[in-house]
């Protein structure tokens, strides 16, 4: 049975709701329609766009994240919806967030490279927790002695933070211009050499 486009919208609506927030890709949705209902990806995306517009101003929105499309409660309703859950949302340690940030911005990255920037050892617990959450995974091994694992973030990580791609992460704070800094250092070096001698002896 071939189905009409307007029915496809209903099917997608129902299926995405049944998936209850698990993102579904366009190609997965296309496959769900079966071989007898071939639609171009473009047409399906058009249908999803229409569906998304149907929900404009309502209590939920259709969003696209890294692993596909999902329905979410409109963000402004979070205070009301948050009351549904008795449990407090999970909080993560600074060590965990710094490790995650380094992997997100510097991927692929080894554990030693993370430790180099943070100045402290990365606990195995943190790495294991991040892998358990499926926020990071081992993408391969660096071709250096010891062949250390190279960590990258996953689509699940992006989904969790409501992102479509890693490019959507806020840009890192620019470092104060190191060249300029170098010049400044050069200049101050001579002065400082003296100052330091004084300070030191003082």
């Amino acid at each position: 049975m071939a189905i009409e486009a307007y029915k496809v919208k209903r099917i997608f609506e129902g299926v995405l709701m049944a998936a209850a927030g698990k993102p579904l890709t366009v190609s997965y949705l296309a496959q769900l329609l079966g071989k007898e209902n071939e639609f171009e990806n473009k047409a399906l995306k058009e249908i999803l766009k229409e569906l998304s517009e149907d929900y404009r101003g309502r209590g939920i929105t259709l969003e696209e994240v890294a692993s596909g499309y999902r329905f979410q409660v409109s963000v402004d309703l979070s205070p009301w919806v948050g009351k549904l859950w008795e449990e407090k949302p999970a909080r993560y340690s600074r060590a965990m967030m710094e490790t995650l940030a380094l992997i997100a911005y510097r991927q692929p990255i080894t554990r030693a490279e993370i430790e180099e920037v943070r100045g402290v050892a990365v606990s195995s617990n943190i790495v294991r927790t991040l892998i358990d959450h499926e926020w990071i995974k081992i993408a391969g091994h660096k071709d250096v002695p010891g062949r250390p694992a190279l960590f990258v973030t996953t689509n699940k990580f992006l989904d969790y933070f409501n992102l479509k791609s890693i490019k959507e992460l806020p840009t890192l704070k620019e470092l104060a211009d190191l060249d300029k800094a170098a010049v400044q250092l050069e200049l101050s070096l001579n002065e400082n050499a003296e100052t330091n001698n004084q300070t030191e002896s003082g």
Partner: protein
Amino acid sequence: MSEIDNNNTNNYATIKGEPVTALPKDLYIPPEALKVFLEAFEGPLDLLLYMIKKQNLDVLDIPIAEITKQYMEYVEIMKDVHLELAAEYMVMAVMLAEIKSRMLLPKPVADESEDDPRAELVRRLQEYERFKQAAEDLDKMPRINRDIFLAGAEMPDIEIKKPLPEVDIQDLCFALKDILQRAEMYEHHQIEREILSTRARMVQILVDLPADKFVNFEALFTLEEGRAGVIVTFTAVLELIRQTVIEMVQAEAFGQIHIKKIGE
């Protein structure tokens, strides 16, 4: 000098032979909270950054001598409150001392290209600060079940189909061919092998069987021995059962067969 009672006999540390009865100037923290405070640092870079920010110093122009002194004070306090001091803190202390000593050396006139000894430290501090900030920003980003909530609906009652595995009829054919070829191959090997003795196998089974523990019947067999090997093992097991040396248990039809030595 400090808000902490100097008459308190509680000395925090000893630096250069002098007891330090006061905390560093900027540390207006009751001693009981000190441990918590010090534990809050994510490492030496974090601690250094804190010291620099606290005193409104320019990261690009750190007064090394002063910072090193303060850093060592913190490290001494950490040791004193029995905070498990990570080796990284000591490594940083050594690095600071080294920078300090290099800055004391007069700069050779000829070598103009020499970097400021602080450059590497500055680079690391900046790099760390960047990711410290990135981590804070990431933590503030909307995330599921805190700022974002997923939407869904109840599924209708459905019958979930379990699809059969995809098997090609040719695969079936090849599978049969494989088994027979394999069986044949082992038979050929068999000729070069010493003849398997049932009695020897009986002994081997008895030696291998752990006392008072059931093992899988299948575990007794080795595919590599071929059909003859299987037969020898099987005969050995039957003989052992007949002699009531071992017992055989099968809980259900087609269930796993277990073998156990009969205890003395």
